[in-house]
């Protein structure tokens, strides 16, 4: 029982960070129908900002907001440079564009920074663990769950209470009619990208707290996990993204905890198998929204 509880705690904390990642993808997808695979590269960028800020001697409480600001600005810039020209194009066009952006950024990191991992100095509290009796849990994991919940609540308030938030949800429903409300479409989209940048940077800090370094390829795994989680939850639904993240975390942890040894080599395949099974039963994902923001 204690073992199960411990693994459940693990599942929740891994799911928390997946939820955060998936939210970042969902915010943009719900409005533009664009799966932004450059989201991972934005995380990597956040890591490099932390490295450079440390080199400059900035303390964490300055370097973290700096990383968040730089990544938010970059996300908005990416939209302006790369995604606006293909706005309204077919899903495949936008998908390829986002792949291209991701690869270009990765190459830029390799060429202009280093192919080798750079150590990211993080404050001790992020890498510490809390003892909860039968099991211990990383502080960064507790934070990721808390942050995921806080972000979800804040996002929900933003989307329900502010005109810009309402406009984002409206744009997710019907882009042209939103413009008929006299709302600047570009502002809504820029806001969505800024939000996804914010989520990418926060997730990056938590992700790096786990692995301690950043390298040009760092974003690959998280963006894949986020993609699986959003698909699982229902592409385009924010609530779905969170649920999908939590479910993916649970699937991974419980399989690693309870699969017999002989089946362990197939852990990855079985995980994806379970995901596919869920999608066969619910093709629209858990929540089943298609591009409807924030119900």
């Amino acid at each position: 029982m204690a073992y199960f509880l411990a693994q459940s705690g693990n599942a929740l904390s891994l799911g928390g960070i997946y939820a955060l990642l998936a939210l970042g993808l969902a915010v943009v997808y719900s409005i533009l129908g664009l799966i932004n695979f450059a989201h991972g590269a934005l995380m990597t960028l956040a890591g490099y900002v932390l490295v450079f800020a440390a080199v400059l001697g900035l303390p964490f409480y300055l370097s973290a907001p700096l990383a968040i600001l730089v990544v938010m600005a970059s996300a908005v810039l990416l939209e302006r440079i790369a995604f606006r020209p293909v706005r309204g194009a077919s899903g495949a066009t936008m998908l390829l564009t986002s792949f291209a952006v991701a690869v270009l950024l990765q190459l830029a990191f390799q060429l202009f920074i280093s192919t080798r991992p750079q150590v990211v100095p993080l404050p001790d509290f992020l890498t510490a663990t809390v003892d909860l009796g039968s099991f211990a849990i990383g502080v960064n994991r507790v934070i990721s769950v808390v942050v995921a919940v806080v972000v979800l609540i804040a996002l929900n308030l933003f989307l329900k209470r502010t005109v810009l938030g309402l406009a984002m949800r409206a744009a997710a429903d019907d882009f042209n009619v939103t413009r008929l409300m006299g709302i600047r479409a570009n502002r809504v989209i820029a806001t969505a990208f800024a939000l996804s940048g914010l989520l990418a940077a926060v997730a990056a800090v938590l992700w790096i707290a786990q692995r301690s370094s950043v390298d040009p390829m760092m974003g690959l795994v998280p963006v894949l996990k986020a993609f699986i989680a959003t698909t699982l939850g229902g592409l385009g639904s924010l609530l779905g993204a969170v649920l999908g993240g939590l479910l993916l975390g649970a699937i991974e942890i419980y399989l690693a905890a309870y699969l017999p040894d002989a089946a362990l080599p197939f852990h990855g395949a079985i995980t994806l198998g379970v995901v596919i099974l869920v999608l066969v039963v619910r093709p629209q994902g858990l929540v089943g929204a298609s591009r409807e923001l924030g119900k």
Partner: protein
Amino acid sequence: MAPMLSATDLHVRYGAIRAVRGVDLAVSEGEIVALLGANGAGKTSTLMALVGLVRPAQGEVRFGGEVISGRDTEDIVTRGMTLVPEGRHVFPSLTVAENLRLGAASRRDREAVVRTRAEILELFPILAERSGQAAGTLSGGQQQQLAIGRALMSAPRLLLLDEPSLGLAPQVVDDIFDLLVRLKQRGLTILIVEQDAVAALDIADRAYVMVNGAIAMQGPAAELRASEQVAHAYLGATMAETHA
């Protein structure tokens, strides 16, 4: 006096398709003008071009004396002209109240917005009742009321409506048209696109008939209504069916 809205030699193209071919039309303050025509005549494209959702390939649109063709929809709406699109297009995942709130997104004067809102809820009591409900769960007629109410929230001087009767029960259609007359009495100028020519001509002051992307005839509504032969020829089955 110059008309409130005028279009001169308006052309709309979608690739090789020429949807609108040199339309001239004008709407004066306080009028209800109907834009009639069969399916695919280019009525919706004309409205879209007027409100900036498609860029005219050629021609000029003036609103309140200013050239607005080529401007963004957002700008045009802020200037006091808006469109209730065909098929209503309420934001289904937003509540009724949220839909209305967004309608006033272009306005800064909060107190005025509160007044407008009160007027609209008076016009459409059902919207007050369903205030917290997701718009997607309303009936077709209620959605149409919401779509119009939402458009009115921007306090437009000119309201464009695209097929407000589409898919609605006859009784509901009557209600909607009654409402348009009342809005006119309150000083609103209206340009309405309708397939139900009889209903539209009943409330309109003037009308244009579009055929194949161009204006085929125009005149006072009463005249067009009387000229049954012409109307039958241009409006086809719609007119005949409604008569039957």
